[in-house]
């Protein structure tokens, strides 16, 4: 019996692994080492990676409209000039060296946690080779451009580094995967933060529609523009129905050429709904330029509604409850109990676009136009930025005050665009 007992206990002990008892015996887990000392987490010491190429030299490899894989072992280094913390940059960051700047399409949220403004970033652009086998484990990054367009109204865009986009929708795609990012993108020591100082530039430094880094070294760089005046126009593209392609002309409403009552730097969902239900955009036409046979936001053509959403029409004719629900959606208030629901239903038929826009409400990017001398500059902001609903001071709107902007200078189809990191980058000159 004793022998059996010992055998059984010994067997049980043999089958036990130490690791499974770690959570049992660990009452407090020790804090992991800081990357600054451990050099883990893709952090590299100074000199461990040596750049062999400037950003301008890399960007110069790109030919308009021809995204390309970087097949050579090219290494660039630069300091981060942007932050996505306030939410105006999204899934990408810019780095710059003496020669120029480039956008890294990392494809992750909250990049500032790992890539703080002023931190040093190295990018090994070429293919990743397994040192043990000599085999290529990852392709090289792709150079491409966002916003390049040919034709009379076209021009250059901004050079980016990302991955291949086999769908052809864009010239490059986001890196997205940690594995890809960490195979190509390396961070300097967390203690080595040197904030990028913006270059103050003037109208003459601004890029032409066909400019490249070779011609305009400020492209993609953090710069300050001084003394801009408000251009009295915005640009916003609304999508009517979330269940239809954003590319369909009849699913689009352009708010352009005037301000459309938008007096904030950008527009949150709440602000968007406020404008809609106030009727600020009722006059805006549905469809791309030259394709405006669908009516407007406030007065959609009934034939178009019948074709697109006949149930909407039918329900408005048959159901008082439905009319009341649409009424509340469209006007933001409860339908008076004394109202004639059939008459209201008739009126609401042409409010279909507004009804859809409310149901598909979201935060929207807004471009506010400013002028620097004779040059027009589009200030781009995101509807999800933390300052989106901050009002543009009345003095600016009325042209009584100018603004100084600090941000990233880019080109989009040859037009100058400007993206600020935060509201602090907009200085009002009263």
């Amino acid at each position, binding site marked *: 019996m004793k022998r059996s007992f010992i055998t059984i206990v010994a067997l049980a002990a043999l*089958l036990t692994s130490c690791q499974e008892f770690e*959570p049992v015996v660990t009452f407090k887990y020790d804090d992991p080492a800081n990357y600054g000392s451990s050099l883990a987490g893709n952090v590299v010491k100074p000199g461990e990676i040596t750049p062999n190429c400037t950003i301008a030299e890399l960007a110069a490899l790109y030919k308009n409209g021809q995204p390309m894989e970087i097949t050579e072992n090219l290494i660039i280094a630069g300091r981060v000039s942007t932050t996505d913390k306030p939410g105006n940059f999204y899934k990408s960051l810019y780095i710059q060296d003496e020669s120029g700047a480039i956008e890294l399409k990392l494809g992750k949220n909250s990049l500032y*946690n790992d890539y703080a403004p002023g931190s040093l970033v190295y990018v090994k652009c070429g293919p990743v080779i397994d040192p043990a086998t000599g085999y290529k484990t990852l392709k090289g990054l792709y150079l491409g451009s966002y916003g390049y367009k040919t034709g009379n109204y076209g021009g250059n865009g901004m050079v980016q580094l990302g991955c291949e986009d086999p769908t052809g929708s864009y010239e490059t795609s986001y890196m997205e995967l940690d594995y890809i990012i960490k195979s190509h993108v390396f961070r300097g020591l*967390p203690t080595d933060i040197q904030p990028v100082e913006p270059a103050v530039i003037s109208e003459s430094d601004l890029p032409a529609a066909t400019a490249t880094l070779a011609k305009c070294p400020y492209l993609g760089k953090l710069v300050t523009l001084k003394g801009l005046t408000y251009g009295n126009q915005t640009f916003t593209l609304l999508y009517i129905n979330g269940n239809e392609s954003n590319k369909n002309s009849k699913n689009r409403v352009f708010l352009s050429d005037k301000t459309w009552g938008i007096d904030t730097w950008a527009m*949150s969902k*709440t602000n968007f709904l406020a404008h809609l239900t106030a009727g600020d955009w009722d006059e805006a036409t549905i469809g791309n330029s030259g394709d405006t046979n669908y009516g407007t936001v406030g007065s959609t053509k009934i034939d178009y509604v019948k074709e697109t959403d006949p149930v909407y029409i039918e329900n408005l004719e048959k159901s008082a409850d439905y009319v009341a629900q649409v009424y509340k959606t469209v006007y933001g208030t409860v339908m008076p109990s004394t109202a004639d629901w059939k008459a209201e239903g008739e009126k609401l038929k042409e409010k279909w676009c507004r009804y859809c826009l409310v149901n598909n409400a979201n935060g929207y990017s807004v471009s506010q136009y400013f002028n620097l001398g004779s040059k027009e500059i589009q200030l781009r902001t995101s509807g999800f930025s933390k300052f989106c609903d901050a009002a543009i001071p009345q003095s600016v709107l009325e042209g009584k005050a100018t603004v100084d902007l600090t941000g990233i200078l880019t080109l989009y189809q040859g037009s100058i665009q400007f993206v600020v990191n935060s509201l602090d980058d907009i200085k009002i000159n009263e």
Partner: protein
Amino acid sequence: MSKKVFLALAAFLCSVSLFAQGLPGGVTAKVVNRAGRVPVQGATVTLSQGGETVAQAVSDQDGKFLIEFLKNGTYQLAVNAEGFLPANVNVSVEGFVRDLIFISLVAENVVAEVDDSNFAEFDMEDSGYSDNPAILYGSNDPYNNIVGYGFSDIRFKNRGFNSENQDVLLAGIKLNDAITGYSPYSLWSGLNEAMRAKDTTIGLEAHDGSFGGYNGVTNILANPSSVRKGWRFSVLSNSALYRLRLMANYASGELDNGLSYAVNVSARLGGNDWVQGIYYKSLSYYLGVEKKFDDVHRLAFMTFAAPGERGAQNSSTQEVYDLMGDNMYNSNWGYQNGKLRNARVRTTFEPVFVLKYTATPTEKLTANAAILFRTGMNGYSALDWYDAADPRPDYYRNLPSYFWLDDEVLRQDMNRDNPFKYAAAKEAWTYNPNVQHIDWDHLYNVNYASEGGRAKYVQQERRTDQNDLNFAASAKWLTNSWFTLTGGVNARMNRTEFFQTVRDLLGGEYFVNIDNFAERDFAFSEAKVQNDLDYWMAHGSAEKIGKGGKYGYDYYAQVRNLGAWANTKFDLGMFKAFVAGQLGYTTFWREGLLRKGLFAGLDDNGREIVVDGIKLTSYDADGNVISSKGKSEAPKFLTGSVKTGAELDFTGGHRVYANVGYFQDAPKFNQAFLSPRTRNSLIPNLTTVKTAAADINYQLSNNGYEVRLTGFWAFIKDQTDMMSFYDDSHNSFSNMALSGINERHMGIELGFKVPMIVSGLNLQGALSAGEYVYTSTPTMTETIDNSAEVVVSDAPVTYWAAHPVYAKGADGKYIIDEFGNYQVEKVQKHYVPSTPQLAANLALNYRTSSYWFFTFGANYYAHSYLDMNPLYRTELAVVGPDDHLTNAVRKEHRMNWYMNETVINQGLSPDEISYMASQERFAPACVVNLSIGKSWYIQRKYNFGFSLEVKNMLNNRGIKTGGYEQTRLVSSQSYERYYRFDSKYFYMPGANYMLNLYYRF
């Protein structure tokens, strides 16, 4: 046999001796199993007076015994039988043979041990689904004996019922969780010895201590005098749950001074061979003391708890399991400084205190009263993050399938067309532990680098701390030989605080108490994103939360129950019957302790709250203020239930009985609120759950043959369900409230034990074959925590109970009739999930006279279904973005599954229905098990033994034990349809062992 002969002889000699004295007094009774009143043959009956044995007898094959020729006076009658707990009865002899009618024995749990810790902690909290094990106990029933433990590996739910339908009593108090209704087995997990004594009923059977429901009653006696006398030590090791369990138990039995006491302690420690990250660090204790004051009064006090930690197991998609080459992969853990750490840990310390008083003023009247108080903490940790990347390793955007699909049509329509990233993701998942598991080091380093020490990642703890006060009283009165009346009252007052704390700052210095879900949409308003608006208004900034601090949400769930029940039993020898009824009253309400910026409600003076020109007070569609703070409306439910049963007993141990009942149950708190974390709003159409149930049974118990065959039926109406899950498309928790869920459960169960030719060899088996289906079209309302909007309002879940399957010809094309309509081949039912609807066991059991035992058998499981996501059964999801159905077509389709080209042109096709609405059925599985054990008796005093069980001997690692559909839709490039997210699964461990060594004296 020699013992029986000796006892019979002794009884005979005593009888002869007393007869010679010409004494007419005596005592007689029938010894029966409390479960089913089956006669117990061979029970030893010892009559004593003043500690001296006066007479002994042994019950015959009908369970009867007779002791005659007694002097007048009071005697103590002790009844002992193998497999049953001892029973003690006081008897007054007054010059005639007193017929005690029945002495009911409670079965000792002779089947292998099963308790809450037999079930891994499945991490389903953010999925919207729940998985609470339903445990079936033995009670010497041939079916329950096998099913209770034998099917626990598949998480079997008897008759398809959830655990909230099973009444669990402790010391006579119904202890199902006040908030969820779940069986509260975790409260005494690991205390197998102290909680071993139970009396149980099956299905609708009447129970002496409560009204019971339609899914049986388990009453755990828990008093020290019911704990097995003596010392017992055991060491248990197993490879599928926790490595080591150490247990010690001592019970005094009833001492001469009427005192009994018992102590039971245990520790469960370690992980297992199959799921990394699962571990137990749990202790359990039980202390009980009981005093019998005289022949009438008895008072007992018990306290117990199971404090400790359990690491939880997460489910993943099949893609992840395949990438890891392991169906038992657990995404909840990672290495921190090289040590394994689980992010999802259940930490509990919920002590329970029970005071129970029993009075037996006469032999025919027994009364009990008990007070039970449960308190303490129950926490469940999880990672939380603010403005940082999703740290979950198996987040769908990290997986290869996010970048590439083999099916060309799907690849194009779902825009998953990047083979390079697919290959990279696959490579990373294959080789990189920081991709496969949580990268704790990275989370810490993000916090280290964060400006001002503000933590971006924390480990939170979601707390559910109950204060639960219960009272129950019952009485049993044997009015005469054929009529027994039992009845009782009960009351419950429960206050459960739901809140969230920072368990670990992960290297950060503080966490900020804002609603990071709301910040995305309301970043412009600092007030709106506050979790504690009152604090923000008083201090001008959100609170900085340190370790242990509360944040996020904090509210009380207040529940009050009152009940009364009565049961009348008739016993006319061969014919028995009962009629029972119950009345109940339930009310509950939410009491918000924080004012959230999003649902600020009205201020203390009843005015709207406006901050910086922004109105924070919001209203629902009916114009009611939506409020997070203060008391909600308190719905009230009056319920009534009745049940009745009849039984015919035949000679030879045959018994036929049938029961029928109608039950009303109030909805539970956790099913009643749209978004309890954030607001006071109740779900629409809240009503009582109505159940009609019936069963008919045949039972045989004779000469070692044990058989039970049951047919059962139940119809459950008007259930509600509330699913709350993290939805990263909304960056928030989504809440789906379902109303009007009806189910029908019917089937048969068979249990048998048949002696074979060889002595000690038995063939035993169990079969549960049922059909548990949904029968209604419920309605669904969906809300999001960070918005007052109702995303889906009271919409029918058209394809919940069934979906049409349209006929196809030999060419694979749909058959269209002369009118252009598609032919419905069948209406495919949808099934109640998460349990096999067909489960069977067959085994050979051999016991030797030298105390060896062997059991070798196999279980077969089939007809198991995946938990359904209601969203996938709505027209919204099935028809897709191109929903242009006219009202007439929609109505026609709902009525008779109308389908033709018109319907297809309006956006709905047979393929879409089949793809989106179908329910996954798991493949059948067979599991082979072997048990072996032996006991050694030393000097007739010490007992040492072991049992070794090898489960799933064929090492089948592809058996799904559960899972769920993710509650998300994937958009298509064509805008014509939606796609599903991949489902997630749990699997059964492969070959595993459980070894138990015990020593008792």
